[in-house]
Structure formats: structure tokens, C-alpha cells
């Protein structure tokens, strides 16, 4: 079941399924954050904004607004 990345907690491993913003998609892709990849939620600042995720060995920071546009499912 798909849900937004922002709703997951630190330590969750999720698979990126869809990004609801074309501009954001390109930005994420150019940093290696691609649909089908497993993301790990590394850390969240107070109120969940911003947050750090990792894709393979890259660390990326995102705002909550960005994370809300990213649809994910929990990884097995």
C-alpha cells in the first residue's frame, strides 16, 4: 500500500514508487534517488522538517513538503 514518505519514521526502509512533481523527480534522479530504489530514513529534524534519507551510499536532505510528494511502500 502506497503512502507518503513524510509519514514514515526514522529507520524505515521504503521503496520509492512515484513522485508527484516533475521538477522534483528530475532533482531526485540526478542525485541517484530513482523510482524502484530502496530509501532509508536516516534522521528527521524537529517536526520532521527537513529530513535525511539515504539511497545506497548517498545522503540526501529533503523538506517535509518534498517528502509528502514522494509515494513509497515499506520494503520487505
Amino acid at each position: 500500500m502506497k503512502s507518503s514518505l513524510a509519514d514514515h519514521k526514522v529507520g524505515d526502509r521504503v521503496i520509492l514508487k512515484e513522485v508527484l512533481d516533475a521538477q522534483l523527480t528530475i532533482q531526485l534522479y540526478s542525485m541517484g534517488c530513482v523510482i524502484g530504489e530502496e530509501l532509508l530514513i536516516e534522521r528527521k529534524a524537529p517536526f520532521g522538517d527537513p529530513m535525511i534519507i539515504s539511497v545506497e551510499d548517498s545522503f540526501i536532505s529533503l523538506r517535509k513538503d518534498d517528502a509528502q510528494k514522494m509515494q513509497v511502500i515499506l520494503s520487505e
Partner: protein
Amino acid sequence: MEKKAFKVEDKLRLVLVGNPNSGKSTLFNSLTGLNQRIGNFPGVTVEKKIGSVRINEKVVAEVIDLPGTYSLSPRSEDERVTFDYLNDSTRTDLPELIVVVADASNLKRNLLLATQLIDSEQPTILVLNMMDVVERNKQNIDIDKLQKRLGIPVIPMNARLGKGTRELKSIIGNYQYKKANKFIEDHESKDALENTINRFEKIKGIIADTLTKIGESRTAVITRKIDSVFTHPIWGFSIFLFILFLIFQAIFSWSSYPMEWIEGGFLVLGNWLAETLPQGVLNDLLVDGVLAGLGGIIIFIPQIAMLFMFIAILEDTGYLSRVSFLTDALLKRFGLNGRSIIPLLGGAACAVPAIMSARTIANKKERLLTIFVTPLISCSARIPVYTLLIALVIPADKQFLSFNLQGIVMMGLYLLGFVAAMVTAFIMKYVVKSEERSHFVMELPIYRTPRWSNVAMTILNKTKLFLFEAGKIIIAVSIVLWVLSSYGPGDEMANVDAKYKSELAESNADVTAINEKIATDKLEVSYAGHIGKFIEPAIRPLGFDWKIGISIITSFAAREVFVGTMATLYTVGNEENTEGIKAKMQRATFSDTGEKVYTRATGYSVLIFYAFALQCMATVAIVVKETGGWKWPIIQLVYMGALAYFSSLLIYQIFS
């Protein structure tokens, strides 16, 4: 003299392209060493680093270091420069070779840019940098296979240690362009998004074939551990503030020694020149005008270099992007962005490169606001003014909680600038309208020890730029000022001489004291004196005398001119140029009331004025370029001027 045989050399241009944090600058530095200079791209102000390197006996290459970019679909101004350069079909004066620098420990995303360049059908080779990290993370890359799959030469390197340089040069020297197969056919990619998605699918296949991984990545584990402290909501902020505090304390205690040597050196040089050169106008101009003005600025090089050093170290270790992460939530509320912290910190060194670094902010409104408030951050050009005035009104041995009080006031001024910048941004947030959505997608590079050669090169380049840019203006202003303060309208100057003639003739006359009186009186009747007197009514409520008035006028060229101006104003006519300018300013009095000029109230008032006013032609020029017009720089100039005037007025009235 032995004459060397003239050799015809082949010229080649190497263009370095790569993701941010891929070690591109390290490679550039290790290739070119000191054979590098900074220029500008035509039409824009992004720094263009150009160097030269000998490839082999026959070939010398010119190397261009383009700004880091993740892909060929630019999302910020900085990336656009690289994009425009690579898509400019008019650059055909030299045969070219594009060197894509990739962080081998993040191969997948680094290959995106490489494959885009392959498809642009330009001669391209790929450097796999940071092979040491790959090894440390127990990964293995099959270079031969990668080479075959991409269809271009691939060179593994560790630019930090210079490993692989020889192989790189040999491949460049023997390079023959062979058209590689297109990675993604044009018909497969109707738009940028689809193209990127298809490209990544293919890259994934290549990675699966060429990269083997045994176990967990060590660098990621270490980075995670450090981040648990550095990005912690409480510890992270405390550490950041502590680092800032240490930087300022260090700058002011460490730099005092070289500064004393420089001041002493200039006194000796000035006296030596004054005695050696034939007496006359030229002697006066050189010693009292040019040398005094120049000495006033060179003395601050140690502090400026040190500030650039700290910023370079923080950036190179990867720490600055953590500061962006920490501050984004806060800065967002003020209409800025976590990335604004880099211009804001850089603004503490110099607003000009800082405003240029705002190009990495993709959102237009956030970028404009960052540009608007960055000049409020106290830059190194204010250091001379601050240092001189603080030394004048606060005793050096005064302590507060066992820290030097001068250092604390200095830090307070920086804090004040920061607060003013934040408040201004907050107001501007409601004035400037924007529909654009704001993103904050930023890479946090792994922590690394700073590459000292990069740090050294940054210090050297930035200090040189500052010295030459500021130096040109200061010499010009010093000369004009010397003329204005050495000559006066009508015979007023001669009248002063006549007035003291009889006093000097007396047998028990104190010649030194009388000469100083003559110098002061002459300055007052000079052209500069008349100008200063003219504006004095407007600035007297702030506690400024006409000499400060002249300095404020000349400071519109650049703030640091204040010290040069003070040096020139207080040196003109002083026969024995043996004491520092500080001592002379300490004795200065208002000509009408005879009260001391540099009281605490006036000192604080001038400090506040210089903290807020936009007195820098270079900043105005860069804002014109970066915002594409005169509208914003004019608003900025008027706003900061009004802020400075009324704040100084308030401070003076409170303290006097």
C-alpha cells in the same frame, strides 16, 4: 644568455565537468598547481578557473574547471553556466576534450552526467575519482568492462594523492576521438524526465555488471555516526555556534602578530622612502597618499585570509551542508533556504563571491532574498573599520568572562548584522511575491579530512582577488584624497602658514606641537575639509566630525577605504610619520567644542553605521549582474543607508 630552441607546441583544451563533491577541484589543483587563474565567463560572473598543464613533450593543455552539476538539465543558475558552456557551438578555437570527473564511490548517479555527455557527441573521457573510498568500502569496479559498456576511456584515480595522474596524461596525450554509440537514442526520450528515467534503467544494468560489493560501506557508517551528533537538534546547533565563536576568537588573537609586523614594516618603509626620495610633491603623494592608504589595507590580509581558510575547511570537510540541514527549518520561516547559509557565512568574508554562491539556490525568490540580505552580514572589509574603532574605544586588556572584550564586541557586531539580515528577509518575504514551489533537495557528502591544497588554493585566490580589486580602488581614492586634503581654495592654506609664522620664530617654540596645529588647520581649510564641513550638519547628530564625514564619502568606493582615508587624513602634513594612526585618532577633538571625537558613543555610532550601510561599489555591481537590473541594488542601497543612519542616530543619543 642562452637561447632556448623555439618549439611548436600543440595546444588542447581540457574541460572538467562533474557532480558537486566529486573531487573535480582537487583534480584541477593537482593538474595545474600554481598555474591557474580566475576569470569570468562572458556575460555572467560565475568564477571560471583556468589553468595549464603539460601533458607530454609535445602537448600543453589549457584546463577549464566548470561549476559542479548533477545533470545536463540545469536546475540552478550555477548549473546553467556549465550547461550553456557545453551547449555553446561557437567555442571552436581549440580542440577540446571533456573530462568527466565521477565520484567512484557513488558511481550510479555520477554516470548520469557522463552518459549525457556521451550522447552530446563531444569527445569525452571518464575519470573515476576517489578510488580510495571504493577500496575502503570493500567495493570493486571492473574498469575494462565499464570502458567497453560506455565506449569511452575510463581512468581510475585518487586525485587527492595524485594517483592516476600519469595514466590520465598518457590517455589524453594519445586520445583519438571515436564516436561512441549513443547511450539513449533521441527517439526514446521525448522529454527530460523520460530521458532521465530511461537512462537510469540502462545505468542500473551497467552497475550490476561492473560493480561488486562485499559487505557494508564503511564511509557511510562513519558519516552516520558523526551525523548523529552534528545534525542533532541540540548538539548540532551548539557545536555550530561554538565553532563560529572559536573562529572569531582565533581570527582576532592569532592575526594580531602578523598585523603588528605589517604595520611596523609600513612605518619603516614610509620613513625610508620619505628620506631617500627627493623632497617634493611626488614624495608627499607617494608616502602620505599611496603608501598610507595601501598600508591601511594590507594590514588586514591576515584576518581576511584566516576567515577564508576557516570557511574553506568547513566546506571541504562536508560540514557546511550539515549546517544547511540544521538551519533550513529556521531559514525557511524567514523566506530563505538552508542553502542560504553558505552565502550568509561567505558574506562574512566578502559579499561579492557570497552573492555569486547564491546561484546554487534554485528557487528565484529565496535566491533574491538571500542576495538582498547578504551585504548586511559583516564582511572582511568591515574588519579594518571595526578593529580600528574597537581598539580606539575599548581597552585591550578588558575582559568579560575571561574572554577578550574586544573580541566579544566584534562578535556582537557580526551577530547584529545577522539579526538585521534575518529581520530584513522576514519583511521582504511578504513584499516579494512568488508562485514557484521551493525545494530543498541537497546532497550531504561523506565526511572527509580537508584537502589542504584545495584550502590553500582557495585562500590564495580569494585573498589575491580581494587585494587587487580593493587595492585598485584604494590607490585611486587615496590619490584623489591626498590632492583634496593637500590643496585648498584661494590662499587659505597660505594664511595658515602666515598665522603661525611668528610663533615658530620664537626661540622657545615647541616646533612639533606647532607643526601639528598647522597640519590640522590646513586640513580644515583644504578642499576635503570644505566638503567634510559641508556635510557635517547632517552627520553631527550621529556624533561624527567632518573627518569621519569625508571617510564616509570615500567609503562609498569600498568600506575598507575608511581606514586608508583616516590614515591619509591624519598623516597629511605630519612631518614625523612615526606614530600609528590609532594614537593620532585618540587625540582628535571637535574643532568647535574641543571635545574628544572618539568617545564611546561616537565609536559605537560609527561601528553601527559601517555595520549597516551598503558602502561597496563591487557589491552594487554584482547585485546588478545577478538580479539582472538596477531595481534591486537601488532598493538595497537606499534601505541599508536609511537603516544605518537611523540606527547610528539612536545609538549615539543613547550613549552620549
